[in-house]
């Protein structure tokens, strides 16, 4: 239990450090949002408007860094992430709640699927070394070494087009109103098929290779020979003795991958114009939308921390050696 609390304290501290860095990073980016907006208007904006924009964005107060920092923390504590410059006057929290479900569902589900699929194939490939399933390895490794945007573009070029079942971009049919209607869900599913497939194709090889190699290492262990000598069924030896132990390193990898779900795959969203967090982030960076950038970083950071914490817990549950007594 004390171990658990210590881990928790560590994560709280890390979260604080991340929040602080999150505060400073956007302020280190050259330029400011008003001039970005002015550039966007191509000079069709007069000084008075510029002045009012500056006031509106709260950039006129000439606060010291420390004052800005404390008010930032106070705002966060209230769950107020500020107002998005780029999507004015929407608050950042609302922009995030619109974008998050898309990313979470698409990338989250595909990450889990690809982990399960890759790991399971890895178990078989490592167990029946040299069999046809082991022969999949070069192909999957090749697929995962292709730069993702290229794979995505090829998929778009090959499988979409006029009259194709698979749409080339977007998260749903333009004109539909997001909601729990059958028509919308059908359209959203159809739009997610191609990105999901490309993600799985690109990432399954990594899991497969990692699991296969761990299986090969573990099957050389003495306790595997003992399990065979005990006359246990092959399935039991493969799953409960070999795979159970080989899985451990993949669990930490899976924790990391889950954490990166929120922010790590903006390439997917960019290629498929998928309305998730990644696309919002690219947009926010282009527009010097500090509050939104900060908001996204915050969500990504917390997601990584939470996923790592979960991976820690899972590891503790799976490997008795990491549990400390007391």
């Amino acid at each position: 239990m004390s171990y658990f609390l210590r881990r928790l304290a560590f994560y709280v501290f890390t979260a604080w450090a991340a929040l602080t860095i999150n505060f400073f990073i956007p302020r280190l980016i050259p330029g400011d949002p008003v001039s970005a907006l002015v550039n966007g208007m191509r000079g069709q904006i007069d000084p008075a408007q510029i002045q009012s924009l500056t006031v509106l964005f709260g950039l006129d107060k000439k606060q010291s860094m420390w004052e800005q920092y404390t008010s930032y923390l106070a705002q966060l504590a209230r769950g107020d992430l500020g107002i998005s410059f780029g999507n004015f006057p929407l608050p950042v929290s609302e922009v995030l709640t619109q974008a998050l479900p898309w990313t979470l569902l698409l990338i989250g589900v595909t990450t889990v699927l690809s982990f399960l699929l890759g790991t399971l194939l890895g178990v078989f490939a490592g167990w029946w070394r040299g069999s046809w399933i082991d022969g999949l390895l070069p192909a999957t490794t090749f697929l995962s070494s292709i730069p993702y945007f290229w794979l995505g573009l090829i998929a778009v070029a090959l499988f979409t087009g006029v009259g194709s079942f698979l749409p080339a971009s977007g998260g749903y049919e333009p004109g539909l109103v997001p909601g729990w209607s059958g028509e919308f869900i059908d359209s959203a599913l159809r739009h997610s098929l191609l990105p999901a497939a490309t993600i799985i194709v690109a990432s399954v090889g990594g899991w497969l290779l990692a699991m296969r190699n761990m299986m090969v290492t573990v099957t050389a262990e003495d306790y595997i020979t003992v399990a065979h000598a005990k006359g246990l069924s092959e399935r039991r030896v493969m799953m409960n003795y070999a795979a159970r132990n080989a899985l451990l390193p993949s669990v930490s990898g899976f924790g990391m991958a889950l954490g990166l779900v929120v922010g790590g795959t903006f390439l997917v969203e960019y290629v498929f114009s998928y309305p998730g967090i990644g696309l919002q982030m690219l947009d926010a960076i282009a527009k010097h939308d500090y509050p939104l950038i900060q908001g996204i970083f915050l969500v990504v950071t917390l997601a990584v921390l939470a996923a790592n914490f979960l991976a820690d817990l899972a590891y503790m549950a799976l490997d008795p050696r990491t549990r400390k007594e007391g």
Partner: protein
Amino acid sequence: MKTDPVLEIKGLSVDYGLGNQAVRAVRDVSLTLNRGEVLGLAGESGSGKSTLAYGLTRLLPPPGVVSAGKVIYYPPGGEPVDVLSLTPAGLREFRWAETSIVFQGAMNSLNPVYKVSTQLIDVLEAHQPGMSRQARTARARELLKMVGISEDRLDAYPHQLSGGMRQRVMIGMALALEPKIVIMDEPTTALDVVMQRQILRQLVDLRKRFDFSVLFITHDLSLLVEFSDRIAIMYGGRIVEQAPASVLYRDSLHPYSDGLLHSFPALRGPRRDLVGIPGSPPDLRSMPSGCSFHPRCPKAFDPCSVDVPVLGTPADLQGPARKVACWLHPIRNSAD
């Protein structure tokens, strides 16, 4: 001398690899394990003793293959079984129920992620599916008690046990189904001498109680002299000498056995010079011609480098059943 065999190995050969690349690690070994005896198998590293044990239980890791021979198991009051031709299901049933093994690596023989109880119980689950859960737990408890470990360690994980305790757990596990044969592959090598002795004592007691036969594999001949009934010495994949333990200790015939015996000090009795054996074990890929020991043998003479000596009872000796493969002691009847 009892001659009631429980396991008979006939002309067993084991190769690593196939075709021209194959390395023959065990060459035409014939060995009989009698009911209730402790048969010691000694030799240097690489002499093929562990390979022999893995071969006869069909646990050889690839690329190991049994290339010739038979392994016959005689169940009490039943038909003899050829272990090497059992079906996979038959083999699974045979394993542990008739022949269990205690392996060399006390540290790694237990699965690190499961409790001791789980690992004791899964053997019972696999072989006696009809047993109730309570009965299985009770049996696991009994097994631990048998090897002198307190019952509350049932819920311990392997990493919470010392090396000696782990090896005791393994011995307890080996006896879970009361097999007729227990193969011990260097069971005490990873332990300190005090623990070695305790565990072997216990083993001797357990053997008396449950009357199983032991094939005890070790490079430590001094242990065998003390704990086994008969000893077989292996060199270069062959059995070179086989004799009752006390006979071998007092009067070994093969120069290699002699070398092994003079490689450790005697605790009692007159002082002897420690000699050891010069040179190193033969390269299995290019075995010397004739007797594979001849390049290291202090007593080698003309025929040694030409012909392979056959294991048999020497003509110049009467008395206890013993066999040797050495040109110094030509066998009584080559047709034997």
